[in-house]
């Protein structure tokens, strides 16, 4: 067996095992992963035995090590930049969207309310109005108005909330990356 065939075997077996595990969780057949995962490992090991040519030598190991280290460095720098951008967008007060409401008493005695969502920007510059919503009778909203009211909050603050979620996700990924790197570093520092 050639090296490329072996790599294809690994990819195919991994995809098949992952699909079986996913399906088993959905179907509630929890015995399937117990059988499929060891079977997949056995298939891969059997394929490895069939490879005639050398799969890996010191040069490939060194190339992979260097590539992995550079990947970590690049991801770390990009991750920090991304986290700071999204976090500053989500958590800094001048950039956060603001909602203002204006209540008006109508001629018939009912109260109407106009909500305005503005996007903050550079301090000193006027805020940009993103969307407005007017509810004619705020004390007796009809279904359409209630839905529009809900949508106003949901859509208006979506970008802000998404930024916060992305910032938190990136921060957690960076933390996990650094902890994993640190653990392996300590392991190999002890070994060599």
């Amino acid at each position, binding site marked *: 067996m050639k090296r490329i065939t072996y790599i294809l075997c690994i990819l195919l077996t991994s995809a098949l095992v992952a699909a079986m595990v996913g399906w088993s969780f959905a179907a509630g057949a929890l015995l399937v992963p117990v059988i499929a995962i060891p079977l997949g490992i056995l298939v891969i090991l059997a394929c490895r035995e069939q490879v005639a*040519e*050398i799969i890996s*030598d*010191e*040069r*490939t190991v*060194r*190339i992979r090590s*260097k590539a992995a280290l550079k990947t970590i460095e690049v991801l770390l720098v990009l991750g920090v930049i991304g986290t700071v951008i999204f976090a500053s967008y989500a958590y800094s007060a001048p950039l956060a969207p603001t909602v203002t409401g204006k209540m008006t008493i109508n001629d018939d005695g009912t109260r109407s309310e106009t909500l305005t969502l503005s996007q903050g920007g550079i301090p000193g510059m006027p805020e940009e109005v993103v969307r407005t919503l007017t509810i004619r009778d705020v004390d007796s909203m009809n279904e359409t108005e209630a839905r529009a009211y809900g949508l106003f909050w949901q859509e208006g603050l979506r970008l802000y909330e998404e930024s916060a979620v992305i910032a938190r996700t990136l921060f957690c990924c960076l933390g996990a990356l650094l902890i994993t790197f640190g653990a392996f570093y300590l392991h190999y520092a002890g070994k060599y």
Partner: protein
Amino acid sequence: MKNRIRVLRAEREMTQEELAELVGVTRNTIISLEKGKYYPSLKLAYRIADLFRVGIDDVFTYEREKDGPGMGEDE
């Protein structure tokens, strides 16, 4: 670092593939070694020298102050 792998291999009418198999590396590694792009580990260097039945100094020559860092040396 210079090496005489290509010369020693040619003297013994050995292909890159054969040499790679005998020392337990891929053909690409032999190609990189011959081009001087990759510096082998001590273990591999000794294995190559042993195979050609020469001393390690007859295969690899270290040139002081001339080399830039190659693959396998610290940058």
